[in-house]
């Protein structure tokens, strides 16, 4: 690959990294897994003057529960999520999504936080995090703030992250004692971006859905939170009529474009089919 020339920094502390960003701001890019940034630089679609590689900063790879919520550090790779017993036992939507993201080589390097910051409308992690109600912890030299994933995404490949900020952590609220979750993805081959993706997270209280999170991938300018479908499920029992209604509302929330992957109608129908499948699976799991 022949990118434009750039200056490379590999700070060993988050403070040093933040100082570099404070100095170079918009001319700098943070390098974590590099699975989105490096291809863009290869094609010269991105040509940052400064690269701040955070891989040598110790202690950013934590994946743990603390005070009832999950913290995913900025250097947690998708393959870490794929192999984590904690994720497998408590966060089924994440466990379902992780192995569907790209291919093993990309998963070994690509990070969850990096995927969120890249804000690709076809990115899988953002839908999962939207469904789970996650927040991103953003640090700068002067402070720290939390941004809900829905507020982070500002359009295709655009976020509200400031040039002097590093996203250090994803913070995921308690999924509930009884929960269901899954991620369904239509792709053309292994390693492909989503043609359509659907993330579903349900906090359950006996027969009833206490809280529902549904988010959609690749059917709009950003990942879409299917608010009306979520509302239709809140407090409801998962019978066929409820499932149909929620699935239709989710399909209505989608705003897909016709392309080589399929027509807008097709993609909207896939959203409906996937939400139906996910909720039916939840209903069956609950019954069993």
């Amino acid at each position: 690959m022949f990118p434009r020339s750039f200056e490379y920094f590999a700070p060993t502390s988050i403070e040093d990294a933040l100082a570099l960003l404070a100095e170079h701001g918009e001319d700098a890019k943070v390098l974590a897994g590099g699975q989105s940034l490096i291809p863009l630089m290869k094609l010269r679609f991105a040509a940052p003057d400064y690269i701040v590689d955070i891989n040598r900063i110790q202690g950013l790879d934590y994946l743990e529960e603390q005070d009832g919520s999950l913290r995913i550090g900025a250097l947690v790779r998708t393959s870490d999520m794929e192999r984590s017993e904690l994720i497998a036992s408590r966060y089924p939507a994440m466990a379902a999504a992780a192995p569907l993201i790209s291919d093993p080589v990309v998963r070994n390097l690509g990070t969850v936080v990096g995927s969120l910051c890249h804000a690709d409308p076809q990115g899988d992690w953002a839908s999962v995090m939207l469904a789970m109600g996650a927040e991103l912890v953003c640090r700068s030299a002067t402070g720290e703030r939390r941004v809900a994933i829905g507020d982070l995404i500002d359009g295709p490949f655009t976020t509200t992250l400031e040039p002097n900020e590093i996203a250090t952590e994803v913070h995921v609220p308690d999924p509930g004692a009884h929960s269901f979750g899954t991620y369904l993805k239509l792709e053309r081959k292994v390693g492909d971006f989503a043609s359509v993706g659907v993330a579903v997270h349900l906090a359950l209280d006996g027969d009833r859905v206490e809280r529902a999170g549904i988010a959609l991938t690749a059917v709009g300018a950003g990942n879409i939170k299917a608010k009306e479908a979520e509302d239709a499920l809140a407090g409801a029992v998962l019978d066929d009529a409820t499932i149909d209604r929620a699935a239709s509302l989710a399909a209505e929330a989608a705003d897909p474009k016709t392309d080589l992957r399929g027509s807008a109608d097709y993609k909207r129908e896939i959203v409906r089919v996937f939400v139906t499948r996910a909720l039916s699976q939840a209903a069956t799991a609950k019954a069993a």
Partner: protein
Amino acid sequence: MAVEEKEIEWLGKSVKRKEDDRFVRGAGNYVDDVVLPNMLHMAILRSPFAHARLTSIDTSAAEALDGVVAVVTGALLAEHNLAWMPTLSGDTQAVLATDKVRFQGQEVACVVAENPYIAHDALELIEVEYDPLPVIVDPKKSLDDDAPVIRNDKEGQKDNRIYHWEAGDKEATDRAFEGADVVVSLDTHYPRSHPAPLECCACIADVNPGTGKTTIYMTSQAPHAIRTVFAMVTGLPEQNIQIISPDIGGGFGNKVPVYPGYVVATAASLLIGQPVKWTEDRSGNLASTGFARDFHMHGELALDRDGKMLGLRVGMLSDQGYAYADAQPSKFKAGLFHIVTGSYDMPAAHVVTDGAYTNKAPGGVAYRCSFRVTEASFLIERLVQNAAYEMDMEPAELRRKNFIRPEQFPYTSVTGFIYDSGDYEKALDLALEKSGYNELRAEQKRMRDEGKLLGIGLASFTEVVGAGPSRDYDILGIKMFDSAELRVHPTGKAILKLGVKSQGQGHETTFAQIVASELGIPPDDVTVQEGDTDNTPYGLGTYASRSTPTGGAATAVVARKLREKAKEIAAHTLEVAPEDLEWKGDHFFVKGAPDQSTTIQEVAFAAYTNHPQGMEAGLEGVTYYDPPNMTYPFGTYVVAVEVDAKTGEWKVRTVVAVDDCGIRINPMIVEGQIMGGLTEGFAMSSMQQIAFDEEGNCLGSNFMDYLLPTAWETPHFELHETVTPSPHHPMGCKGVGESATVGSPAAYANAVVDALLHLGVRNIDMPMTSAKVWEAMQQGRQAQDQ
């Protein structure tokens, strides 16, 4: 002396590939591995527009960049009469644009610099002004009267038609259709795909001002033909041009043509006096080099009420891009597409073909395919399947009823091919048996009752490979023979030099086995050399499944010649008459006295130390083999797929492939070739397409958009064989490298259509994406509701 028992039968043995040792160790030697002293690096600036007038190019900023040695434009090349070059189909193609750009990705300028980073930086400093012109992406509209003429550079070219070419007998075919009980028709587009070899194009041009010698390292499937073309284009004396094609990371037809990068690098090296390397990137490869297929096809099949085929009518429009730039036997404008009657005893056929220019990359290379037999095989096998549905016949039985029967070979087809040998029913029966075809049909019925979709597809293909007999086959006038030179050294080891060129096919093993089989020198003692034009005999290269039919035959013939001479020498050393000797695997012995014998190694030593008076010393020879006919491999493939009725996704459950390529030299290598072809057939049927939008933007110029299947989705393949030797090949072999790419796409397509039969679906164009399958189901359901 007595001969100890050892291995003497090398034919049909799965010898491990000799070349793999260096490949698995990462010790291969590809063009990009070659580094020469003072070597410069070249990068190409490509057009963002599909059709535009070139109004100005300003290279001053690029030239001023530190480390840039030269910026080459079309205007500079034009001064040396090098702005245009001939294609292997007798058309012309721009080396660098001078007047217009005619496709997105066309080469506009090249930077030569001290390193590739600087070269790429300089590309961004070249300022080009374009004046956009109307873009033609649809070959049908391209032939409209008012369509803008894309090739206005060509004198006398008043429209966008490249050729109109017909085969067969129109009147006889019309009569056949008049008398038909049933006529089935099909319109289908075989989409534009790309061979996408793992290694993209690359060359190093080294024009040495001191010696006058031009050495070009190039990843080429046809180095000798390239040398001749270079001599003709540049005017350099051919004896001063050496093409070295080292290890090649896949070709699939993509590395037969000459590309602009090769010509510019050579011109730059000539002007600068230093070696110039050009290594293409993936986007450049996909967007600008030889694509494949892109045939818009119409077929009509006439049958009587019993299902006997009466006639075939075919119309084909080829989207060639802006230049007719495939390698083509010059006699056949649409390649060998007119073999479209396939495996069937067709009483009449008429084939009408047209080629059209569009604002797309040039090419039309036969991607793992013998000159367009892939598209032909796809059309007839799809038509026959649909005819069976129309007549409510079992597709296997309709095929059986119409196969060319074994006793009809050699069979002369109505479009002019002489099929050498075949036993189609045997291959069909084996495929049906091994796939459990009848059980699959029963299961299909059961599943459909449960609302689940299982589809079963068949294809009984026949190929025509091994170009070719000199009476019919030439490229730019050069006849399509091929050659082998065999030298046996005094110690009984040998070197075999060939005019063909492996790109992964395993020549170093297969051809060594031929020598071993014919001359008794074990494969490990035979070095196979290819790809260096100074050190191998002339040949047309490796594509169109031609290496074993031509180069392999030449190897057998030259080995037999040497065996004849060896017999004379053996008679001399054993002090008997040659006619008293018999040959057994690797030694001669005296008839009736097997103890009196001499090995080929002993004979080889004698050829240099104790040869008979009056005989020339040495044991070597060269053969140019002009095949008497093409070879016609065939087979039947059965594919079963399950289709998701809600999403249109489909998964392959079964692939049973029965191939008959005559005698197999190395069964392991043959099976590897078949699996590769079945994978590529799966890719074409399910996911691959180089698409364009209305502005001519290429939508398939990277591996995010142009999809290659991984091991994950690639089906499991079950392989079987029948053996019907070629009667004219010295070893009974036929070519096989492309059989599965040719035969399998129709089997996959037939399977998916078969799953949706009850919805009235009769066609889904490839690639059969889940979206297209869903649309077809939707239309079928809506039609049934009405």
